């Protein structure tokens, strides 16, 4: 079939395919800036957007946090290990940032709004610091936000005493001052790494 096509064309095509394949993994990296410690996911996910209620019962959306660097994390207050550990690490990162952390907001979105009432959320996030905001919403707005950032959560079967666990993502999505998604972190990142990357995002203008 390719008897008529010139072998040179075939060779050029093959080299092109190989080059295209090997360069895809590199796109998104600016040529001169050192890489972030966290995964750079600029442009891979949509702009921050949601409609939820904060720990004071106020209806809030993403525009209320424009101008700040925003961290988005899904969890719940009955969480035995992952959430308190992650939030405590974020508290440490805030301490490292010092005064600059006043321009950072950590949005802790409950995947268990049934038990996480506004009052419960208020005392829980208050424990971690000024920058922490507890957000909750009905099933529809919660699943819309989870779908937007492609995260999953599900309730485990209840224990005999009626308590239950909720399995959820470990991702920390980080948005710049304009609400664009920039980084994704997880339980593998240290407070130092997070603070270092946040400092860089804070130095950008809104």
């Amino acid at each position, binding site marked *: 079939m390719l008897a008529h096509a010139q072998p040179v064309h075939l060779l050029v095509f093959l080299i092109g395919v190989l080059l295209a394949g090997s360069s895809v993994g590199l796109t998104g990296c600016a040529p001169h800036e050192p890489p972030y410690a966290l995964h750079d996911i600029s442009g891979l996910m949509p702009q921050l957007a949601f409609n939820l209620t904060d720990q004071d019962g106020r209806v809030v959306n993403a525009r209320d946090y424009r101008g700040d660097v925003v961290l988005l994390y899904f969890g719940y207050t009955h969480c035995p290990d992952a959430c308190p550990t992650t939030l405590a690490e974020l508290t440490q990162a805030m301490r490292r940032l010092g005064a600059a952390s006043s321009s950072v907001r950590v949005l802790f979105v409950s995947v268990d709004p049934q038990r996480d009432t506004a009052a419960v959320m208020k005392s829980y996030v208050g424990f971690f610091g000024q920058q922490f905001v507890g957000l909750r919403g009905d099933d529809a707005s919660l699943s819309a936000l989870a779908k937007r950032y492609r995260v999953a959560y599900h309730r485990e079967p209840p224990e005999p005493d009626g308590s239950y666990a909720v399995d959820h993502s470990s991702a920390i999505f980080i948005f710049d001052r304009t609400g664009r998604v920039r980084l*994704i972190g997880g339980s593998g990142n240290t407070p130092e790494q997070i603070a270092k990357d946040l400092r860089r995002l804070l130095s950008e203008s809104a």
Partner: protein
Amino acid sequence: MTALSIATFVLPWEFSPTVFLTCALTALVYLAGQRALVRRGTAPGIWRALAFFLGLGLMYAMLQTHFDYLAQHMFWIHRLQHLVLHHVAPILLVLAAPAAVMREGIPIGLRTQLRGSLSRLPRLKRVLLLVQHPILAAALFVGLIYFWLTPSIHFTAMLDANRYRVMNWSMALDGILFWWLMLTPRAAQGAAAVGYGTRIVILCIAALLQILIGAYIALHKSELFDVYAICGRAWTLDPLLDQQLGGLLTWIPAAMMSGIGVLIVLRLLLRESARSVPAAALRGVAR
């Protein structure tokens, strides 16, 4: 199951007009063609229509039901999704040989117009012939599996909705191209015809390379694809068990498809030689 939970499973997780329209249009054209051929009494056997709709239905179910949610949040379900998109569904579609039926389903006026505009696109034909070169087709078939399973690329494909769509489309389209090249009788392949011996060699190499990557994933001692832990799994499952199941699906059933492919090619070969032997014998007598 309640009506609500059935609806949640059957309705798309992320509705795609492109997938919906492509599948619906393909089904409608096929049905129209089948009706025309039945009226003329020249319709092919019912099993071909069954294979066609099973293949098309499987493609649709993989992409436009709640299954897609599970595939986004569980590695082994994702591998199952690609096994169907890249192997099972395309094999069924190719075995159904729907081109002749579908041609009858296109209105005559549009048919000549289509043929006319296709003949004015010699470059398209050349590109198709190029990607259907047996070596390139095999490299593309196996290369896509390796490409989307490169951990850093897999990570972004599962986060970015656009890359995710490109990934699934590339698997489905390449599956159809590859299995058409492997399983269609040579006489029906026109300029792209590939010999049966070549096909068997390609299928064996493809199987070997899929066994390699599948075994590598299944036997790997640490997590290769952390995106499922970062974004959360559809249900609680040990990450390494998820990875092992996904690796096994890439390894055994995917390689078995090559085995089935070889059997089909052998059958084509036997049928053609059975047909050509009496003809040659007759020629011998005439001489």
